[in-house]
């Protein structure tokens, strides 16, 4: 905050008129302000310029997009409708939305009771259970993908759809359980005790007392899960690749670029259309989102 004085305060006061000292102090503060803010502006450019270039390219004409120009000659907003009318693009949206919404509902419904039990029940093996939850979080999905794929494809004949990705979410998600448990630990035990004294059953206590108090935590896990599904590429590639009718936006976008090998303008328009929902949702739910990130990191 304040610049540290390297000379001892008493000598400074004695040897110099206090007016000069204050002026020097102010000048140092101004210089500090300028230094900090110029670094911040330079960094902000690093983070924001990619979006700007993507946007500018997305409205260029086909020819100009290949030229390396930075500023569009004409603003072809029709590129966006071209992308929307590309065969498949709308169904990718529908699939992404289905995957993300159903997956989120499943995750929340199955993870809330588990997180509650891990945070508030006393039973032997609680610590072991937590360690196991964390180790599933740590496991790279590629480690178990082959047996899982074989089961879904050969026993249930569900490859070519997103169900092998959605159904497991009805059985709890380690990351959501962990995050929510951290949140539930902050709810005072007294609320739960008094609900029980009033004759609430365990399940009613959860629904009527704990869930309303845990809304920010639940909002955070819902958002994270929604974004996880929306962004997922590996899962859809494994299960949906062979059936274009089941592709999601993330998976489709990459094949969109491959198919339009030269059309960077259309690709950039499509790219922004894939990013848009995430960024719009963020602006509406900023608080829940940032709280969730903080919770995983800081209160661990």
């Amino acid at each position: 905050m304040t610049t540290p004085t390297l000379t001892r305060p008493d000598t400074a006061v004695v040897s110099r008129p206090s007016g000069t000292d204050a002026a020097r102090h102010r000048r140092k503060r101004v210089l500090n302000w300028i230094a900090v803010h110029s670094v911040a502006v330079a960094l902000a450019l690093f983070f924001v310029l990619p979006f700007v270039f993507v946007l500018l390219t997305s409205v260029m004409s086909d020819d100009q997009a290949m030229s390396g120009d930075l500023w569009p000659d004409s603003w072809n907003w029709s590129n966006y409708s071209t992308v929307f009318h590309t065969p498949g693009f709308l169904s990718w949206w529908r699939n992404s939305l289905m995957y993300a919404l159903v997956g989120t509902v499943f995750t929340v419904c199955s993870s809330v009771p588990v997180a509650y039990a891990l945070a508030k029940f006393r039973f032997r093996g609680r610590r072991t259970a937590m360690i196991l939850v964390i180790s599933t979080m740590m496991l790279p999905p590629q480690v178990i993908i082959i047996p899982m794929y074989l089961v879904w494809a050969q026993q249930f004949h569900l490859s070519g759809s997103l169900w092998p990705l959605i159904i497991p979410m009805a059985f709890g998600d380690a990351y959501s359980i962990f995050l929510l448990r951290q949140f539930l630990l902050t709810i005072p035990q007294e609320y739960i005790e008094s609900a029980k004294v009033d004759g609430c059953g365990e399940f009613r206590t959860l629904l009527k007392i704990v869930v309303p108090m845990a809304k920010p935590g639940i909002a955070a896990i819902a958002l994270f899960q929604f974004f996880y599904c929306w962004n997922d590429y590996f899962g859809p590639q494994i299960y949906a690749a062979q059936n274009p009718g089941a592709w999601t936006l993330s998976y489709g976008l990459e094949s969109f670029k491959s198919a339009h090998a030269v059309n960077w303008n259309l690709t950039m328009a499509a790219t922004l259309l894939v990013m848009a929902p995430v960024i719009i949702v963020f602006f509406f739910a900023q608080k829940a989102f940032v709280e969730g990130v903080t919770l995983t990191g800081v209160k661990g």
Partner: protein
Amino acid sequence: MALSLSTPAKSAGRGAEPAPRNSPLRRKRNRERLRTLGFLSPWLVGFSVFFGYPLIATVYFSFMHYNQIKAPTFVGLRNWRYVLEQMPLFGPALWNTLWLVVVMVALRVVFGLGIGLLITKIKTGVGLFRTAFYIPYLAPPVAATVAFVFLLNPSTGPVNEILSWLGLHGPSWFNDPNWSKPSLVLLSLWGIGDLMVIFMASLLDVPKEQYEAADLDGAGSWTKFRYVTWPAITPIVLFAVVTGVVQTMQYYTQALVAGKLASGVSIGPGTVIQPGYPDHSTLTVPQLVYSMGFQNFNTGAACVLSLVLFAIAMAVTLLLMRKSVGLIPAED
């Protein structure tokens, strides 16, 4: 898991004075046990079916020859020896994964911490800067990668265009084996938002009095960072390193998409492309698992690769976790 939950049931009965069969105490205990099991049941099922089973099956398949059509046959350690001794791409994939783990995690932590420190010093327009630094983290990985392949296009991309105005000859980024991994690192630094938020929150938690005390002692900025800030945030830094290592061990989407798009191959149905363009420089172990299991249908080798990945991820995590008590979840 189920095992460790049922132990209390048995040991309770074996106590010094076993409670009578129908005592209220015992009934209450049984009720509580059932209630706990009920609440945990979604996860208990999920854990055994979607974690326990496939992990065991992966070990089983690692000893089998299996092409996903004919029934698996036992081949002993042949898959293991093939992967560890002969497989031509295993070395490069392992090297790339470890390179990314070391360089990417280190730079992400340093950069994230730097931005966290900067943001706590900004006095004007904090909200605006915070949003600007955070937003790229939200960009879907595929979209971000497609955008970066465009931005870093060697001949027509905006980045090299701007570098040439400055009289610099930009590198070939994703098209040069020496620059492809650094390009991926750049992409990951762009999405640093999550770390920034975590570091920011922990920096704001450092008690103000300690800084004031250090000021009175005439400490400089570095001394204050070293003796006040750093001890307070060490657990968070460790958390960032561990989660960073785990994430980077799984590094897949960005490397795959960048390699595919930069190679300029248009992919039709049935095209099998060699992953890791250029010169296998972006091939990671997870990609090798995918291409072994789902393109070459060599289930055994793919499962061996999975287990190698698992072993390294576990070893690194345990090693780092052991260094810190703060990481073990609080038992309230």
